[in-house]
């Protein structure tokens, strides 16, 4: 649904050129929800703005919903919805009129626009706000209005730039459920940027991590976590720490063991499967186990690992 190759953006100013996006390649399949992660200034918003026809790329190309981003931006605009970080509702406008205006500019007749407005108002459960102005709404309410605006023309592709930034936990959960429902009910392809790794973890089929203008990792949240960071098993034993240490260090799938008093910490792959084997071996070695805990890596661990690795490499390049 989205094919991006070599997309790049360099801003030129009097002080010289600044490369915001160094050339990114990726694909998003129909009906996929893909998260775009990266630290501030990594190039997320710039990429998003290029893909939504707001910013002219300085290099590369992209096909969105079958249309060429550079040559057929009008066709791309017909097929995409975009909800920016700031939203887009006119603060002083009556919400119902504002949404209908968006429909009209997408080529709908007056009655069509009214009908679609009523439909999206219902879909986002904001009918009771329809006669108010967006300036009077709470952050969570406004976000739902913004999404309704972006979806008035039922686009097959939706771009969301940090859809839950500054929202309270309930509002976030509500936005997430709306995004999932879009895919379930309409097969909408969703490309969203976020700072929140738990958001990507909960919502996304796949994650792209961008750092310093390049995509540095790309996979499902589970696989990224498995590939980059290890599971951790913590085992507290009642006695025979040395014996436990020997046994565990020799076990398959265990990368390292650290000991702190009677507490052992193991880095390993697939902790769920390894655990029962480890416990049986400890039992055979006659070690008494008091408690066991399995810690799964969060996407934060992955994110830190990747972006740090990336910086180290860049620094090495610079030195060499």
């Amino acid at each position: 649904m989205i094919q991006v190759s070599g997309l790049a953006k360099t801003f030129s100013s009097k002080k010289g050129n600044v490369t915001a996006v160094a050339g990114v390649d990726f694909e998003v399949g129909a009906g996929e929800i893909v998260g775009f992660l990266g630290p501030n200034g990594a190039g997320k918003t710039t990429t998003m703005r290029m893909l939504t026809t707001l910013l002219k790329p300085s290099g590369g190309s992209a096909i969105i919903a079958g249309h060429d981003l550079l040559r057929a931006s009008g066709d791309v605009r017909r097929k995409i919805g975009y909800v920016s970080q700031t939203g887009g509702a006119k603060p002083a406008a009556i919400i119902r009129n504002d949404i209908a205006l968006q429909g009209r500019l997408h080529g709908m007749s007056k009655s069509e626009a009214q009908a679609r407005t009523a439909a999206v108002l219902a879909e986002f459960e904001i009918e009771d706000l329809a006669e108010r102005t967006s300036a009077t709404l709470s952050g969570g309410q406004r976000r739902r209005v913004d999404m309704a605006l972006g979806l008035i023309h039922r686009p097959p592709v939706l771009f969301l730039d940090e859809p839950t930034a500054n929202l309270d936990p309930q509002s976030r959960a509500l936005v997430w459920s709306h995004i999932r429902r879009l895919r379930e009910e309409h097969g909408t392809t969703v490309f969203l940027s976020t700072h929140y790794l738990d958001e990507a973890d909960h919502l996304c089929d796949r994650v792209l991590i961008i750092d310093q203008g390049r995509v540095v990792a790309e996979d499902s949240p589970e696989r990224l976590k498995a590939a980059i960071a290890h599971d951790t098993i913590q085992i507290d034993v009642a006695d025979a720490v040395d014996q436990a240490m020997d046994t565990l260090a020799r076990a398959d799938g265990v990368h390292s063991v650290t000991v702190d008093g009677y507490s052992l910490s193991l880095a390993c792959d697939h902790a769920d499967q390894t655990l029962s084997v480890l416990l049986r071996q400890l039992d055979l070695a006659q070690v008494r186990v008091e408690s066991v805990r399995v810690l799964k890596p969060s996407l934060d661990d992955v994110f830190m690992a990747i972006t740090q690795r990336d910086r180290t490499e860049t620094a090495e390049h610079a030195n060499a």
Partner: protein
Amino acid sequence: MHTFRETMIVFRDEVSGSLRNRVGIAIGLIQPCVYLVLFGPLLTKALPTEGGNAWRLYIPGLLVQLGLFTVGYAGFNLIPDMRSGYLERLRVTPASRLALLLGRVMRDLVLLMIQLLCVLAAGLGFGLRASLPGVAAAAGFMMLLGISLASLSYLLALKLPVEYTFAPVLNGICLPLMLLSGILLPMTFAPDWLRGISDANPLLYVVDAMRDLFDGQFTTRPVALGALVVVLLAAASVRLSIRVFGQRNS
């Protein structure tokens, strides 16, 4: 055809937004009359015109000044729309970029024409006597001037999207334009060097032309020159601002 339809959609939306701003409407209507009431009486004494009518000299200038300081400041209403993401949202729709600009400009023109009617009505009360077809033609000049000033103001707002830089730059441009247009006093009073500078001011030609039109003279050199200037200015302004408006930048 699409562009026309979309222009009307944007225009209607902008008008309905403006109509909800009651204070804005009231000030917009009162302001031009304030000039007439507070400045006009001085002028009639200061400019004794032989058998003519001082109002006929002053009101064309007042109209241009009004255009400069109302429509010329239209950019101020674009800045919040940029900040809220509203303009960007419209730019992600397939709507014509020209329509997004012209819809706004048309709203500004309607307001300008209402103000113009207020000034003329008040002027009549004060003793303005002018040629009716001439005044109608002058209104046409004002429309074209309004298109230019609004487009250029939007262009400037796109380039300077924060009030604290937009406002001083705009003032810095508008003030000399006004002083050198012969709006307050005819430039015939000016020393040569000042006249030389004012010759480069398009507003001067518009004011001169409108003064002749108010007198009922349609075939004078200033009218022809003014018409040429105002048409070229409108065409160039729209062209220039549509280029920036349509750009994928920022």
